[in-house]
């Protein structure tokens, strides 16, 4: 069975904001890695989860499904999800799938943090 070709790093930049840096492929095989990253990013005081897609190399429709699953989980916690670092291609994907309706997209980390 193919292994997940992704690495995720969690940065708790403040008591209320955590950033998940994504490097590699986001597909169905990334589920465990993503959920473990969220578990690490999620603290009792976390209000905003920011996904950094600057290192994203590949994403298929199952990867979009994973993000939706994560988004639902985050919403249940009354948290918000932001994103930055999307290339033009992946920004198109977010708009095509209407994921951009639910996840606010920013040009860079600074802009996302300012909004959080």
């Amino acid at each position, binding site marked *: 069975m193919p292994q997940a070709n992704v690495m995720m790093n969690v940065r708790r930049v403040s008591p209320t904001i955590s950033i998940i840096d994504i490097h590699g492929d986001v597909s169905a095989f990334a589920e465990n890695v993503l959920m473990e990253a969220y578990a690490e990013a999620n603290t009792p005081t976390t209000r905003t989860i920011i996904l950094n897609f600057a290192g994203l190399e590949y994403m298929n429709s199952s990867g979009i499904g994973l993000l939706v699953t994560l988004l639902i989980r985050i919403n249940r916690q009354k948290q918000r999800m932001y994103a930055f670092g999307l290339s033009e291609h992946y920004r198109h994907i977010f708009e095509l799938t209407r994921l951009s309706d639910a996840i606010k997209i920013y040009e860079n980390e600074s*802009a996302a943090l300012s909004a959080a």
Partner: protein
Amino acid sequence: MSTSPPPTNEEQPRDAAYWSSSGSSLKVTNIPSGALNLNVDGRQVVGPLQGFGQMWQKIYRIRLKADEGEGVPPLTAKEIIKTWKVNFPQFWPTGNRFYGPLTGIAPGEVALLSLSMPGGIRLSTGVLVLYADEESFTLDDTTRTCVCRLDNL
């Protein structure tokens, strides 16, 4: 909310060819005989968090038994999905029709649906092939998103 996009990467990602390059608005170019272009042309597809009803992830498992004769190689996921794509219109329940695009299930193509609903009502709608690669494809319509993927043999 959204700000100006980052510079375009000259090198396309590995998944670029598998995603629809069109927008989220459905565009019907050819209407197969018997199909109705109702509630389709110009409509927007909805995201997985939208549409009516709650989104559920459903996983179906089927057992495919190939001919296990001597020297017969096992089926691959690519072969099964290829067959599934070609014969997709034939796999719909009685009373329901999937009018596939002439070019087959490929990213960006639009198919028309005629669905049998409770009470004898017929629902005409359409789907956009949001994503299609050798081992999966995703359809998105104006009400919900359907992902078809083969995980394991």
